[in-house]
């Protein structure tokens, strides 16, 4: 129980900060993911555009080179004269400048006059169909673009080219065309331009670049589009040229670190790009890593989709950014939780420490202390609790003091009572004798005046003894209460009427202010009246002529811990007052400040006994020289004690 409030508070703080942290982490990561991926896809699309632009530029470049060559007059005359030696030189020079893999000249009848490479001057006879020359001869205009070159063509051009074009297919269970086990055709960027001599077409100049195993294009894309950016030792950007769905030129690496030639694209991409001719941009697993990729189809001059161009960005770079963000978010969450726990601890301590002090204070009260240490007063509900606790303990203290005082008083009364009963019996018999004999002597006429005067002294002294003994007996005689419902105002008025003359003689005014709407009280009228008379006479004795005595009645709650309904009779005088050191002794039997013979010192003690047996109490306030106030409180509901001592 001791730590549960604190740990509950800390746990709730932890829980709240954990929840907030997790929610913001998840939401933040989602946003970052979407944003990052979107950004990356955009970038990759742009990269693909750039790569495509480079591809198209290459095509134009080839065509331009060929066109410029065909416009030279020396070249035209060599073609006209079929000067193959000169043409071969010119072709070699052109191919070297334009970085062409193959180039050649076809006569208007379709035969190859000369070409670059080992088969520069073909022997007449059979020859493979030249798809480029064929198109130009038919259309009499130049063509350029992507062309599929059959293996026969390549062999005839240059068997090294055929060798370069041959790419074995990687084993791929997902492949749809498992029958083929190698690629032999070539994918090329090529152009063919007619050579005119005036309106006469002399032949066709053709040339191109074989893309199979070509590193130039893909690596140029990597270097220019991605600016050679490297992440963890690997290039961020990759580019690939596909012949159909097979990689024929790429810088995507296999797990072994080689260029992933002969591997295929996923069926999904193939269908999307090759079959439907659409752009693809998405996250994809390529060879051995995740890439953010974009694919676009390559169309041949004929319009058929013959391949694809691809660029991809290593996803790991973005994953790393995500990891960094995740780490930062997690650290922030942990920090919030730490702060939450600390805050929870502090607040819990603020709340529980006054409660702990209250618990310790209640333990002190249990062990008997009535002045427990409550510490600094707090604000708010805890402060209210502290005040309530303090008031409760004080009320307990008052009740305890009151009940102790009552016990002491009744013990005193009992012992004095036993003594008085015994003494009275023994004294009253001889006292009867003394009184009888002195009075009888006084009746005689023959005694001298001085003797008579002495006898008178004996009579007075004996009367005093008689009064003292009677007082003792009244004090000890705890007769049974005879309670009946009473109008307290009437009772007070009756008591005052008995003393009024006495007060009038002394010159002290008695004023009575009866309270209104008082509850009816049930009490022993004669005993309470004797209490009232006693208290008022005491006030009268204490008040000098010219002073006054004021008496009030009022409905009042008992101020003794428990609030009981009742009435309070206040007797206030303007008399000499009681010194503080005597206030406590006021109700002790035989305590009196009156001159010897004036009082027995039993009146207030007896009065208190009577009031207490009614369940009430008497309080006194006094200031020397100003006067005293006696407050007699009596309960409205009957709750009286019956402790008469008979005998």
């Amino acid at each position: 129980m001791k730590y549960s409030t604190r740990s509950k508070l800390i746990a709730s703080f932890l829980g709240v900060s954990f929840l907030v942290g997790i929610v913001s982490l998840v939401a933040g990561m989602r946003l970052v993911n979407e944003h990052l991926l979107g950004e990356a896809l955009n970038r990759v699309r742009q990269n693909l555009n750039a790569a495509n632009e480079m591809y198209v530029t290459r095509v134009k470049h080839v065509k331009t080179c060929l066109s410029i060559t065909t416009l030279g007059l020396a070249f035209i005359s060599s073609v006209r004269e079929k000067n193959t030696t000169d043409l071969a030189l010119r072709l070699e020079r052109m191919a070297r400048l334009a970085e062409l893999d193959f180039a050649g000249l076809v006569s208007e009848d379709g035969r190859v006059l000369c070409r670059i490479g080992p088969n520069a001057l073909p022997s007449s006879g059979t020859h493979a169909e030249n798809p480029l020359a064929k198109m130009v001869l038919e259309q009499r205009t130049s063509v350029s673009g992507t062309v599929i070159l059959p293996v026969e063509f390549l062999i005839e051009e240059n068997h090294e080219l055929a060798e370069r074009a041959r790419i074995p297919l990687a084993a791929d269970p997902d492949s749809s065309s498992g029958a083929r086990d190698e690629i032999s055709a070539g994918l090329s960027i090529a152009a063919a331009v007619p050579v005119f001599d005036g309106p006469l077409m002399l032949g066709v100049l053709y040339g191109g670049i074989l893309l199979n195993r070509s590193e130039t294009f893909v690596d140029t894309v990597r270097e220019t589009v991605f600016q050679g950016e490297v992440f963890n030792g690997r290039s961020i950007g990759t580019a690939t040229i596909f012949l159909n769905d097979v990689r024929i030129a790429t810088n995507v690496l296999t797990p072994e670190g080689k260029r992933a030639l002969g591997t295929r694209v996923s069926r999904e991409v193939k269908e999307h790009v090759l079959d439907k001719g659409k752009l693809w941009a998405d996250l994809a697993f390529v060879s051995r890593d995740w890439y953010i990729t974009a694919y676009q189809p390559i169309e041949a001059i004929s319009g058929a989709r013959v391949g694809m161009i691809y660029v991809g960005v290593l996803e790991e770079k973005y994953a790393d950014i995500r990891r960094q963000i995740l780490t930062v978010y997690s650290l922030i969450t942990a920090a919030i939780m730490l702060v939450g726990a600390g805050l929870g601890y502090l607040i819990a301590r603020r709340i529980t420490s006054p409660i702990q002090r209250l618990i310790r204070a209640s333990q002190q009260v249990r062990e008997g202390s009535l002045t427990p240490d409550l510490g600094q007063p707090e604000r708010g509900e805890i402060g209210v609790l502290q005040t309530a606790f303090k008031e409760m303990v004080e009320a307990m203290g008052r009740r305890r003091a009151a009940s102790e005082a009552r016990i002491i008083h009744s013990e005193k009364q009992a012992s004095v009572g036993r003594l008085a009963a015994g003494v009275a019996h023994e004294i009253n018999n001889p006292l009867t004798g003394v009184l009888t004999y002195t009075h009888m002597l006084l009746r005689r006429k023959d005694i001298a005046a001085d003797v008579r005067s002495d006898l008178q002294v004996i009579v007075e002294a004996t009367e005093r003894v008689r009064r003292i003994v009677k007082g003792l007996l009244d004090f000890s005689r705890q007769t049974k209460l005879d309670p009946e419902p009473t109008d307290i105002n009437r009772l007070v008025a009756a008591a005052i009427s008995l003393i009024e003359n006495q007060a009038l003689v002394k010159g002290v005014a008695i004023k009575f202010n009866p309270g209104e709407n008082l509850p009816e009280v049930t009490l022993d009228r004669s005993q309470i009246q004797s209490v009232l008379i006693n208290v008022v006479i005491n006030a009268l004795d204490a008040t000098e002529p010219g002073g006054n005595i004021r008496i009030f009645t009022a409905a009042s709650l008992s101020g003794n811990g428990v609030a009981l309904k009742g009435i309070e009779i206040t007797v206030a005088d303007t008399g000499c007052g009681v010194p503080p050191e005597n206030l406590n002794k006021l109700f002790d039997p035989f305590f009196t400040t009156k001159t010897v013979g004036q009082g027995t010192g039993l009146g207030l003690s007896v009065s208190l006994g009577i009031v207490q047996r009614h369940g009430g109490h008497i309080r006194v306030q006094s200031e020397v020289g100003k006067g005293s106030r006696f407050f007699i409180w009596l309960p409205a509901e009957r709750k009286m004690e019956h402790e008469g001592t008979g005998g």
Partner: protein
Amino acid sequence: MKVLVVDDEAIVLRSCRMVLEAEGCEVIAAASVDEAMAILEQQIPELLLIDVKMPVHNGMYLMRRLKEKRPGIPIIVMSGYATSETIKEAEDLGAAIFLPKPFTPDELADTIKAVLANTRREA
């Protein structure tokens, strides 16, 4: 008038005798209940003064016996100390009045006169 005074204290007996004789009464004194019982066998007083607390038998005992044997004689009960219970018991047993000790001659005389006047009025 014949008055029987019962008290174990000699001083009380002598005091009563002095006062009552001064009032013109004939006083018979008994120092115990037994003595009083013996006297009552032979004489019938017009008034009894009885103390409550006495050795052997107390005044209440005597009153109970009187109620059986000689009812109707007025009784004054004296005591140096009495609770309301003893007073009530005495009244129930037929006591005309309760007289607390000590008393002066006048108080005793007045009490007797009052009791006798009361008895005569009732009779």
